[in-house]
């Protein structure tokens, strides 16, 4: 990683640690919310941004994670068991969801993931014996870590921050390993990749599975944050918003989800000063952002570099053209 990126991350870490001192309870809650969505969208960024798959059903895994924790805790088991179960279940289901990806072309894969999300949401809504149906599951407790209660918003915020940093580090390690290049090869040219020995089937399945695990972990944290789980946050609409977050942040850029989740979660809050118009401004901002930066917010440095490069090259070209005419004239 470049030095500037490391300094940037360090500065952000300091900010994230100190921020709660300047915020009221709701601000801390919002920050925690944002962190949770960073985890979830990092998973989606892996599936969609790095591995080039189509996934419009990510919120389903988010919901599976949340409901797993809620149901298990209601049955008297610990949060930690729920968290582990959430991750495992999402991994398995993610692999299963990856199978259609092996056989269907892009747009139909998107539809299949939508269908998956729909199925999961219907189960959440209708299977009252399991999920409480539209009434949901309430009074979900916050966990305690080594005797320390994480009940307060501040404590839970620091806990979520720690988990976020851990998940980020794991993903960074994975993408830095040969897996990172394999995913990129799968995204940019699967036929070529296969002819070079990249097992595109396995990597496709794993890109779904690992992305799902991230959403599941985020969902588990979400359950204890909001302490009341019902089907509404896990609809197709929510998946589409997560997709929006990944694309706006910059698909395939490691820190894209940080910005994307900020745009999706924090920006609408910040825009509330516009009152009735705030969602209109948000929607318009997304449209304009896409037209101006189709590769997402984090593509700005690349674009600046490309423009500089183009300027250098055109200056070099005109310089050599001038030299040529000069020589020609003097010949």
């Amino acid at each position, binding site marked *: 990683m470049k030095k500037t990126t490391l300094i940037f991350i360090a500065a952000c870490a300091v900010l994230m640690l100190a921020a709660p001192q300047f915020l009221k309870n709701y601000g801390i809650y919002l920050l925690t919310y944002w962190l949770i969505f960073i985890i979830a969208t990092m998973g989606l960024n892996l599936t969609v941004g790095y591995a080039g798959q189509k996934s419009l059903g990510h919120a389903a895994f988010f919901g599976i994670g949340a409901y797993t924790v809620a149901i298990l805790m209601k049955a008297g088991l610990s949060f930690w068991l729920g968290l582990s179960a959430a991750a495992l279940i999402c991994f398995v289901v993610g692999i299963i969801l990856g199978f259609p990806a092996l056989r269907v072309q892009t747009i139909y894969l998107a539809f299949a993931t939508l269908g998956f999300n729909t199925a999961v949401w219907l189960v959440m809504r209708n299977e009252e014996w399991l999920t409480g149906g539209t009434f949901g599951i309430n009074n979900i407790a916050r966990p305690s870590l080594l005797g320390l209660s994480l009940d307060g918003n501040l404590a839970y915020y620091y806990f979520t921050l720690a988990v976020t940093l851990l998940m980020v580090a794991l993903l960074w390690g994975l993408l830095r390993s*040969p897996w990172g290049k394999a995913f990129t090869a799968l995204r940019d*040219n699967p036929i*070529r990749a296969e002819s070079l020995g990249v097992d595109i089937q396995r990597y496709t399945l794993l890109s779904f599975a690992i992305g799902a695990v991230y959403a599941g972990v985020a969902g588990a944290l979400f359950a204890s944050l909001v302490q009341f789980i019902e089907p509404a946050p896990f609809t197709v609409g929510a998946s589409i918003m997560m997709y929006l977050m990944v694309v706006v942040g910059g698909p395939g850029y490691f820190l894209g989800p940080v910005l994307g989740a900020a745009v999706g979660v924090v920006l609408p809050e910040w825009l509330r000063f516009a009152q009735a118009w705030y969602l209109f401004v948000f929607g318009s901002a997304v449209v304009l952002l896409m037209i101006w930066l189709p590769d997402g917010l984090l593509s700005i440095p690349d674009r600046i570099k490309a423009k500089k490069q183009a300027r250098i090259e055109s200056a070099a070209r005109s310089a050599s053209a001038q030299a040529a005419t000069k020589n020609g004239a003097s010949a």
Partner: protein
Amino acid sequence: MNHPHHHDRSAGQPVLKVSNLKKSYGAIQAVGGVSFSVMPGEIFGVIGPNGSGKTTLFNSMLGQITPDTGKIELNGEDVTQCGPLELNRRGVGRTFQTLQVFGKMSVRDNLIVAAQEHAGSMFSRMFAPTDSGLGAKADALIDQFHIRHVAHKKAGELSYGQQKLVDIAMAFMSEPDLVLLDEPCAGVNPSLVGGISTLLKQLNQNPKIGKHSSFVVIEHNMDFVMDLCHRIMVMVEGQVMAIGTPDEIRSNKQVLDAYLGS
């Protein structure tokens, strides 16, 4: 899963043996009983007019399509039913007629990813260093191909000719026994064709990495083929018309009539 190249390199055994390969598309017989062998270290050319079945033959050898009948043997092992992934694991590399580099990765990374899946298992690769220990190999090939000055750039930013060189280099990274080259000169500036020919000869006789690979080359550029190949197979309408050295092919009356012209 790891497939080390364990094979009997007994002297005289062909690297590639195609026996009576047939493939029809409905009523059209694209390939009608083609047989030939390629010996270790040999450069084997395949020429013929459009529609002669070269591409279908190639795609069968590369596992993209399954032939109707016939056998394809790689170092004595039957690989007729193998797909592209399996073939690569067994030691077959290839280049593509249209450019197929990973545009958003650097040239060096392109080369690394071209061989990284051959080291260890998927699980072990999670913990491997980012270049999988292939940095030196990649650098050796970069120097041999004279693309050191663009090695750090994204492959998509290179000129067509340079990308073509990267494409060819990628095929060699995994030290394959057999490399199939699909029209390596297609779309290349005529001034660069000689360079490619020299490079391929070098890779064949004096590889900086790995062993002496055998090549099978489809090309339309006659001078290129005659200069580069040890033996040439002429295909016409799905059948083998002749197999021989460049001199034998040049003086073969049938071939001259059907293909090379006056």
